[in-house]
């Protein structure tokens, strides 16, 4: 084999194990030895060069703007109350059959919650009820929209065994899908409950009192963040799950606060 043929073998097979004839030539030819050594070095050095590099963020920003300008992307509808004319669209949206139906559910929920909260509550078994809810899985790691569409209780007060003091309708289950109107209805019901929390001390222990109120603020902040996020990304089912869970947590907390207030009266 000659150097030219050796080069041809190298071209076709790369640096993979060489055939016997090529190895025999290599053993006898210092030029080809140097050549192979240099090529091997180049390949090794090239493999150490980064195959991927982080592009500047501005590229995507510019690209995205261009895609929108060309009409290649379609964003889902986003609520923009500050946009001129949007209030009229929102108003019109209120009168669609679906909106009316969900608004009706929300009104019924609010009424039921109000009635429930203003009845003397029974403390028995409420800890067990709350503990039951505590035992439920935490905020789901995966989106399960079907769970949101299922009977999702919004317990304001749900003692398991109550001597008939509570209105059964106060179970306040939601059977409609968690549309935005439903979420707003829930918010209204919870806000109503929050207004009933006495401004005076909830417990003789000021630390506990402060802790309860602080926790309520934490929950409210989280709910506000989720709602703000959903306004921008209404299709984000994961955020809806988080928000749903936060509402439930708030309801439990309000129940605890109200019971604390009453027990001190």
């Amino acid at each position, binding site marked *: 084999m000659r150097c030219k043929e050796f080069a041809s073998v190298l071209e076709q097979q790369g640096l993979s194990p060489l055939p016997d004839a090529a190895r025999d030539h290599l053993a006898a030819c210092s030029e080809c030895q140097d050549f192979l050594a240099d090529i091997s070095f180049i390949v090794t050095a090239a493999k150490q060069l980064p195959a991927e590099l982080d592009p500047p963020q501005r590229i995507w920003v510019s690209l995205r703007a261009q895609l929108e300008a060309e009409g290649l992307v*379609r964003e889902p509808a986003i609520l923009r109350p500050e946009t001129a004319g949007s209030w009229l669209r929102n108003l019109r949206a209120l009168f669609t059959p679906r909106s009316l139906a969900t608004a009706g559910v929300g009104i019924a929920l609010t009424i039921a919650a109000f009635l429930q909260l203003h009845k003397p509550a029974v403390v028995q078994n409420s800890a067990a009820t709350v503990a039951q809810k505590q035992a439920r899985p935490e905020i789901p790691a995966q989106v399960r929209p079907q769970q949101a569409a299922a009977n999702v209780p919004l317990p304001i007060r749900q003692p398991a065994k109550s001597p008939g003091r509570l209105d059964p309708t106060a179970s306040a289950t939601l059977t409609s899908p968690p549309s935005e109107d439903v979420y707003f209805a829930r918010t209204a019901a919870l806000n109503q409950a929050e207004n009933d929390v006495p401004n005076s001390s909830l417990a003789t222990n000021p630390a506990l009192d402060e802790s309860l109120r602080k926790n309520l603020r934490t929950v409210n902040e989280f709910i506000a963040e989720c709602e703000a996020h959903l306004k921008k990304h209404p299709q984000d089912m994961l955020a809806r799950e988080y928000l749903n869970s936060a509402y439930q947590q708030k309801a439990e907390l309000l129940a605890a606060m109200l019971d604390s207030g009453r027990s001190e009266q």
Partner: protein
Amino acid sequence: MCASTAMPGTALGGIRRIRTSRSAAIGQLARQRPAEPVAWTEAEAIRRAQAGDAAAFEHLYQLHGRRVYALCLRMVSNPADAEDLMQEAFLQLFRKIATFRGESAFSTWLHRMTVNVVLMRLRKKSLPTDSLEETLDPDSENSGPKRDVGAPDLRLSGAVDRVNLDRSIEQLPPGYRTVFVLHDVQGYEHNEIAGIMGCSVGNSKSQLHKARTRLRELLQEDVRDQARDERKASKSQSDTQD
């Protein structure tokens, strides 16, 4: 009293879960923006992008952008040009994404567009571009080791660093440079390169071998230049001392 203290405790436990999960949730929400949605496969993202979903576009960009940018930067060596080229490549991709039928791998399709965009730009700049069939010299068959009689030891190992290599890659003709970067830097196989470049596997192997051979020559020139500069420097030093 017991109940009222027990209930806040359990409610507090619930609130603690909220605080923990809140941070995780908000963090996850933040990480999800502008990152890709959970559990999208590439095929799903392509389907959604074909329907105009902005998030799907971004998903595909995040998936392939780093390799495309690396390829563009190695081809033109100028970050500003590389950014322009990358944007142009993705713009072409998204304009034509509705026509993608899946006959080839999506990444191959994207890289083909990228290479075409790059080579078109280089041709417009009137740089000496080589077609895939161009060769280094008339005696193209003799791409084996060259004999340098009397030259100093030009073994590359130990004399060449990454800077030298990067500079030498920049000097390769675009056709050779493309194949070399795709194969030796980014790890594509010859059959993939053939799909990207629109050539045969044999052609890809040939161009790669020529690219490596040319790189060796360029690096040897670098080593020679360095050795000469060092000799000059030491000579002038000894002259000064005298």
